[in-house]
């Protein structure tokens, strides 16, 4: 009986994770645009103490945390798009900005191709961001498809 309850619970957990995270089960790249925060009260302590709760991270981003890494953007790069999704979308809308440039750097786009990268993203804004419910993972795969089809930027997507 106990085992049954546990199995049922695990099943429930994993289905929710599937439903919420397009990057895979338990993957955190499912952020939608304008995600916001779950509330200011826990945040007050979590980030204003200059500290961290639980285990302090130590620069190790190569682990995948259960997220699929099928594109060319590294785990760290995807995590950045997911975290700075609003900044990235705003930069794509105006066609320039630090978040957009940082994504280009994460893709290994050479300096002389960054302008082309920015233009490609900007001109295809509606493709990348078809509505306000698009997730970071979807935007990354659309961006990679666009780059792959581009004569100049295709070489960065192998």
């Amino acid at each position, binding site marked *: 009986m106990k085992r049954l309850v546990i199995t049922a619970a695990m099943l429930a957990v994993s289905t929710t994770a599937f439903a919420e995270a397009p990057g895979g089960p338990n993957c955190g790249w499912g952020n939608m645009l304008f995600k*916001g925060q779950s509330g200011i009260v*826990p945040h007050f302590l979590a980030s204003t*103490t*200059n500290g961290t709760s639980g285990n302090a*991270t130590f*620069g190790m981003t190569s682990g995948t945390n259960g997220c699929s890494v099928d594109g060319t953007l590294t785990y760290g790069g995807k995590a950045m798009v997911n975290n700075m999704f609003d900044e990235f979308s705003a930069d794509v809308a*105006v066609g320039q900005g630090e978040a957009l*440039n940082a994504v280009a750097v994460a893709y290994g786009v050479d300096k002389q191709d960054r302008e082309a990268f920015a233009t490609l993203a900007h001109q295809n804004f509606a493709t990348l961001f078809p509505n306000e419910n698009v997730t970071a993972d979807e935007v990354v795969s659309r961006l990679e498809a666009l780059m792959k089809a581009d004569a100049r930027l295709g070489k960065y997507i192998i």
Partner: protein
Amino acid sequence: MIRTLFPHLIAGWLLLLPLSAGAAEAAWAQAQARALWKHETWLDLVHYKAGTWPGTWRSHADDPAFFLSAQGRQDPRAELQATLRAFAEPAQAGDEHAQCRFVARLDWLRNELDLGELPQPDCAAYREFRQQVQATQAVLVFPSYYLNSPSSMFGHTLLRLDAGDAEGGSEYLSFALNFGALVDPDDNGLFYAFRGLTGGYTGQFEVDQYYKKIRDYNRDENRDIWEYPLNLDAAEIERLILHLWELRGIDFAYYFFDENCSYRILELLEVARPGLELSDDFPITAIPIDTVRAVQRAGLVHDKHFRPAHGTVLRQRITALPPAQRHWIKVLSAVPERLEDAELQALDEGTRAQLVDAAYKYLRYTQTGAARDPTMAARSYQLLRALQQQAAALPRDAPAVDPGASPDLSHGSRRLAVGAWSEQGREYLSLGLRMSLHSLEENRTGFPVGAQINIGNLDLRLEDDGQLDLNRLDLVDIVSLSPRDRFFKPLSWAVQTGIDRQWTANREHRVAQVNGGVGASGRVGPAGLVYALGTARLEHNHGFDDPLQPALGLRAGGLQDAGPLTLHWELGAERFANGQSRTRVDLRHNLRLARHQALHLQLLWRDQRGDDTLAVGLRYQHYY
């Protein structure tokens, strides 16, 4: 199988042991000859500080994992000997081997001593770390004052490590080195403050991507960030990263005032550049901006960069628009469809694009800290689409946000004051020491508008009969006056607690009190600010029949800058539960003589004992 392997293992041990152990003993003999454990670099690497008793030492690291000797925490010599021995141990331990864990000690000792042939453990975890964390430049980062959180009101410092050429954007992927308390999210703010002051928290270093810091500070907390690139060379940065690895997961006690984030950053820099002495200057408090200045004085800073908060950028975008059109910002952020209005369509393309840009930023700003709202998300998306379509009409290079004076240019954090007072026919001298940091009427260069952050202000009076007495003691005295306007609606507030003197029943009493207030403030002209707060006070006063009395009241005042002179006036009225009431008019003039010097003239009229009283005082203030 095990039985057959075992003798071989033993034999291997016996073969290996004398060789490496012999080398370790030889290295130790060299170290002893030079008393190497007294070397400054060794003391820095193990975070030793001189103990109270001469010749004794104690490491700030509060973690047995950081020491290879059981006495290591107090004994630099024993720790050095144990380190040399541990380096020579068989390589099988892998990641747990002392050579893998104490890479900076190994690097330094290799240079100082002949370590002979050491075993070569496989340091897989360290290799992976180094693959991730590389740097060609180190930057000292100061997220500015944040009055809404007790832990951040003095600002904060962290280090950033930039890989490759740090041109626009790649800093997002740089690594941020942050020393912070490991907190329990269930602790409440007050508990945090208490534990933070008394060392109840454990602190650790954390290494994470810089974009998370940008998000936390620029967006979530709406704080400007100042970045100070350092001139550490490749070898110095290498030492810093080596030592950083040794500190992974190592506990330090976290003290809010001295052994805090900023102090630990100084220690890291001392390891990076041997011979630097930074942390010794901060025995009592390490106020973040003072540590920035110490790093500047040591000649490490070669540049300054401003990274504005979202609110700062929004304010700049609003100001860049013609005043007659600014109302559209709110209209569009509420109803994006109004973009089709004929009146708006009649505007030139550039202004229209800037309005959409500002409306988008404004809408997002209002959602800071809020959970996702589908209506707001849909509206934000509409504006973003419109922005994308009109982006070509935006000024190609958006005008840079005016950062104002950087925080390192502010007056000194501590203040000494000498004054002469006359009150009700009595004269006395006053002597004051304030540990930190800034009052409203003081030289505002490098401080945010309307911020008063005073912790530990002691004022003594010397009467004409030679008697020394307490004039006032402010433990905490914080005021946050954020002006409201059409777009920004922050609250203004004040908290103060300490001991002051009050006329009660025709006698002056020293009273313990805590008071606070909430209200609003607004701008008057380009250099003025007015405010009004509803206040509450709890006072312990022996002049009352029942000494502990609560009171409610009002305070209102204004600040006006006129060149080097700042005038601060305030009216206050309070009524206690026992029926007593107080009225007060306070006029303060602060004349800036130089960056670190000021003259302060105060007139304080009080009506609270039947008769009214007037005190006039002139004070010379020196900041350091």
